[in-house]
């Protein structure tokens, strides 16, 4: 019983981290049809920025994190505006190659600037303490991760379905020319969505730093996990991504607790079965 509760809570936290990183990728991949394999690098940059600001510059966690997220968003916006938008109409393979190359480049740059060691984010006392839930104590940071995941899910769903920006985004994706004719600023919409996705990846990188240690190869190491979440959840489907992230997070955590010497076997087995059952995403028949 105790074990089950542990697996569920840690799996939930892990899944939420995967979800926060995957949201941006799901939007760019599913709604904008752009295969961005540099998404893991955005998460890494967000995490590194937060680590450097809290540790080297001695900033408070609560200031450093928004600044790190904003920096990632700015980087995403600049990259989109300068280079990536020219690749929207290229083939998927070319997008894959370019963004993989970008990831390699950012990995090498990160290593050159910060060195190969694992970066730690200094947590404020409030998050470093543990919280007693009655049946077990839990680091407060885990609770923040779970809460942040829920907030991101709600905010993203609300933005895409209920706001004018969401309507613009869907219009710009479905019929770019028609949308432009109707006066929708599609360049701004694309750039802003991309930046928002990068910002969320950065947030995920910060929040997930305890579960996925920040090191230069981060950008590729966890990319596969995030891609799996997007594929299983269905591209562009936010509820699907949330469901996929949480269930795969629980599977991964359970296999770490119960069968650690099997490596990633159960994670990928679960993924293969889920994809074989619902090839277009969990919530799409």
């Amino acid at each position, binding site marked *: 019983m105790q074990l089950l509760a542990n697996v569920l809570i840690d799996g939930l936290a892990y899944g939420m981290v995967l979800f926060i990183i995957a949201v941006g990728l799901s939007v760019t991949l599913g709604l904008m049809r752009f295969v961005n394999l540099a998404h893991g690098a955005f998460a890494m940059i967000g995490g590194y920025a937060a680590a450097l600001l809290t540790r080297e510059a001695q900033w408070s966690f609560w200031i450093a994190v928004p600044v790190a997220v904003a920096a990632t968003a700015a980087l995403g916006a600049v990259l989109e505006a300068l280079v990536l938008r020219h690749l929207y109409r290229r083939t*998927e393979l070319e997008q894959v*190659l370019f963004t993989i*190359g970008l990831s390699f*480049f950012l*990995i090498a740059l990160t290593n050159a600037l910060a060195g190969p060691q694992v970066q730690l984010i200094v947590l404020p006392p409030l998050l470093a303490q543990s919280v007693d839930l009655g049946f077990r104590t839990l680091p407060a940071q885990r609770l923040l991760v779970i809460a942040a995941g829920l907030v991101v899910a709600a905010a993203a769903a609300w933005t895409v379905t209920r706001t004018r920006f969401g309507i613009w985004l869907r219009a710009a994706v479905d019929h770019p020319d028609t949308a432009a004719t109707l006066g929708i600023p599609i360049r701004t919409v694309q750039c802003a969505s991309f930046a928002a996705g990068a910002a969320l990846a950065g947030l995920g990188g910060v929040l997930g730093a305890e579960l996925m240690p920040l090191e230069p190869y981060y950008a590729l190491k966890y990319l*596969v996990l995030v891609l799996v979440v997007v594929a299983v959840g269905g591209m562009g489907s936010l509820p699907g991504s949330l469901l996929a992230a949480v269930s795969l997070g629980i599977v991964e955590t359970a296999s770490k607790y119960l069968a650690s010497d099997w*490596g*990633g076997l159960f994670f*990928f087995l679960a993924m*293969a079965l889920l994809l074989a059952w619902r090839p277009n995403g969990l919530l799409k028949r």
Partner: protein
Amino acid sequence: MSTDSSAPRVAPAWRAPLVVIAIGSIAWWALPDQLGLLTRIAITALFVLSLDLVVGIAGLATLGHAALFGAGAYAAGLFALKASGEPLIGLAVGAGAGALLALASGAFLLRYHGFTFLMLTVAVAQIAASLAQKARDWTGGDDGLSGFTMGPLLGRFAFDLEGRTAALYAIAVLALGLYVARRVVDSPFGLAVRGIHESRARMAALGTPVLRRLLAMYTLAGALAGAAGALSAQTNAIVGLDSLSFALSAEALVMLILGGAGRLHGALIGAVVFTLLHHTAASINPYHWLFIIGAALMVVVLLPPQKAWGWLRSRLGTKA
């Protein structure tokens, strides 16, 4: 695609393999210190060639090709360890293992398309890697499979320490693989697969059994990848878990695109250029290598080779 049936302008299938043997022999004779590198280039080229059959010819983007390479490598290693050190039979065993895994996984994978297919190929390769890591008794797990010795090639040419036999052996197998691949691609079967690449629906309407043709091509590619894995096992006398890794699949794809997919010789050029670059840059610092390959990938996409050649040609043309 220049598949106009009224004027088939196909180079004889033996030409490219002869070129490979000629260049390989010259390199073998001229660079006796670099035989290990030469062997590695030949093996990598065979692996990328097999990937070209899947990605370039059949149009199936895969990131799990290392599973087939690793299957061949472990099969050949185990065969040498448990049964016999005869290299050619080991090569056949490796190719058979690659083909078998391709047949079994392809029957499941090929039902899916696009991104789903891509992610499922990743899953298959990762599952294979986890199983190899877990089955320590058979594969040696993280330590790798070693302790086997190879018998002499054709009963006469022993594998020497300098790798003279190994290099010629790898080049010969590469040339044979290239010949087979060229013959298959130019055959009616190869044309059907290329047709499926361009339009599944039309080929199905013409009466081509799409799934069976793709599965046959995938199995053939599995045999070539397995042969490459077997070569790697036999010439290095060790099989590591990295022969099943995601990095190997991704690197092979990068090589293929660098050289140009769908034309077979592009696979060889990409493998040679990539391996040489890797060898030089990584000996300085592994992270330099990432800078170079990352920049190279971005440049290749922004300035595609065909476009760059065309631009160069038009410039030269106007000057002349």
